[in-house]
């Protein structure tokens, strides 16, 4: 699914100094894997995530997604890939305020070339257990419910790859557990998931943990016995 080879990312700060956010990162993630990328803040994990999600381009190295070299993709094609192949989940949910859960979930469909979008949003909301909240606005939902709306939004175009950047960072234990249960369920049904977190407890729900420090991957190991998050009744 994902093949990173010698990826580097260098930022030039306003004062002229350059910062190496990523240094020689190589990583291979196969179809159906559930990988946690852990590290302290500033270790480069978010930058890596942005490159994986085609939101940012590496300064050096190659990134092959599903066998395709992404360096050759035009901006419009990248947008189409983000729309169809990749689902994003963020720490701060990024739901549009004053907008119903259903409309938030349908947002990616606005930018898709599907001819019929009827029922897709509702189906995605039902898959995260929010079928009874479709007309609620974000302000009327709990943090956990908001993040589940965001997950439904990531799923609505049925992508193979989910990228989650600290998805449980703003949630309490119970809500975090619910979110992880959803991710595990999605992984079981075949989706590849890459999850960034600084929380070892959360990372232990994944099958594999890559640890980053100062722009490099310093450890990459399988989790022998991943924790199972139980889907609890609401």
């Amino acid at each position, binding site marked *: 699914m994902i093949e990173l080879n010698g990826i580097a990312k260098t930022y030039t700060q306003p004062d002229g100094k350059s910062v190496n956010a990523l240094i020689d990162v190589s990583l291979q993630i196969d179809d159906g894997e559930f990988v946690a990328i852990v590290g302290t803040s500033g270790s480069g994990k978010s930058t890596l995530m942005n490159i994986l999600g085609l939101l940012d381009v590496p300064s050096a190295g190659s990134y092959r997604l599903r066998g395709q070299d992404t360096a050759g993709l035009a*901006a419009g094609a990248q947008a189409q890939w*983000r729309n169809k192949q990749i689902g994003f989940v963020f720490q701060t949910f990024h739901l549009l305020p004053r907008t119903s859960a259903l409309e938030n979930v349908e947002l*990616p469909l606005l930018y*898709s070339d599907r*001819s019929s979008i009827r029922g897709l949003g509702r189906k995605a909301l039902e898959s995260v257990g929010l079928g009874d909240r479709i007309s609620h606005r974000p302000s009327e939902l709990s943090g956990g419910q908001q993040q589940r709306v965001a997950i439904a939004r990531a799923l609505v175009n049925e992508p193979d790859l989910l990228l989650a950047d600290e998805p449980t960072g703003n949630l309490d234990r119970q809500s975090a557990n619910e979110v992880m249960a959803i991710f595990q369920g999605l992984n079981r049904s075949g989706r590849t998931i890459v999850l960034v977190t600084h929380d070892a407890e959360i990372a232990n729900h994944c099958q594999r943990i890559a640890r980053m420090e100062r722009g490099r991957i310093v450890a990459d190991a399988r989790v022998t016995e991943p924790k199972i998050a139980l889907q609890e009744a609401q």
Partner: protein
Amino acid sequence: MNKMRLISHSAGMMGRHKLRTGFMMIGSFIGVAALTLVVSVGLAAERELLKLAHQMFGESSLMIIDGGGHMMGGPRNPGTRLKIDDLEAIAKQVPEVESWDPQQGLTTSVRRGDLADTAQVLGESDRSEHVWGRSAVQGAYFDDAAVKSSERVALIGQTVVNQLFGNEEPMGAEIQIGSVPFRVVGILEPWGTDPHGMDRDNEIVVPISTLMRRLTNADTITGAKLLVAPSAQEDQMVKPIETILRERHGLAANQPNDFSILTASEVRKVMAAIKRILSLYLPMVAAISLLAGGIVSASLMVASVNERAGEIGLRRAVGARTGDIRLQFLIETAATTVAGGVAGILLGYVLARMGATKMHLGPVAPWSAALLGILASFVVGLAAGLLPARRAARMSPVDALR
């Protein structure tokens, strides 16, 4: 197909941010209201001026007015030299003059029993109906014999009828103009209010000989209107008339005219100047206010783009292309300014109607002004949306999501 989805989505988003949308609408609202107001009042004023010019001059005519100098601007020399004899001499010597009517007037009280009115009393000849084009809706104008014998007969306007007669029959009744009794022989065609606010139906027409002998006790007239042959060049007739009058008034070569000759072309010049103000300068002022409104919309939208960075980043993440983001912000700005513009048209129209009523301009036709307003607000909206839309589209998704 999915562009339509995006457009209706963008429109829906604006309704959810009522305060922001409202503030953005205010700029074009005020600008378009001003534009609608001045354009529709301007058009009504122009139409009224044309009507007045037509009433004064008809197809081909000119006017001689006692006293020199210019009609518009500059002092006029006082003069009480113009006499009916002068006009008779002109009519005899200038073959293009087809007909003419002298005029003398005064404003005085008119009474019938206990009822009183203050009216404009005009002394005219039996040719008045033909020369001025104002007929009698009841009865008829006095004839040449009545003028010759200074008969005390009068035609009265509708306002005078209402003031003195109410529902009673005016024809044949006796009224007192000043202290002189007159017999009502006709009702004047309704003429409305002129741009000076004068009620032209509060007029009484009597034979000029009667007026001069009985009411003003003067042998001079204030002016005369001359009808000329349609083929005649009015401007070329000014010179011979001037020569005749100067000679008859005994003016030396270095003395200025003690009369004025007013032709339709001179009036057209004045009207062109007024029209320039009405159709160019006033709309320009309104356009500047619309421009200011557009700048307000643009700056609000730029602020909104910065504030909505997270939303823009998210849209990019879920597959929006830069063009989609640009389109959304363009639609939002254009739609708000057009909506504000439509509301502005309504306000401008209401104000224009109020103003036109106060200035006696008659009905205002809002359609051309409304069309202009919608067009202008659409253009301003698109222009105001360009900068924020560009800024939003260029925002890096990584920075926007941070």
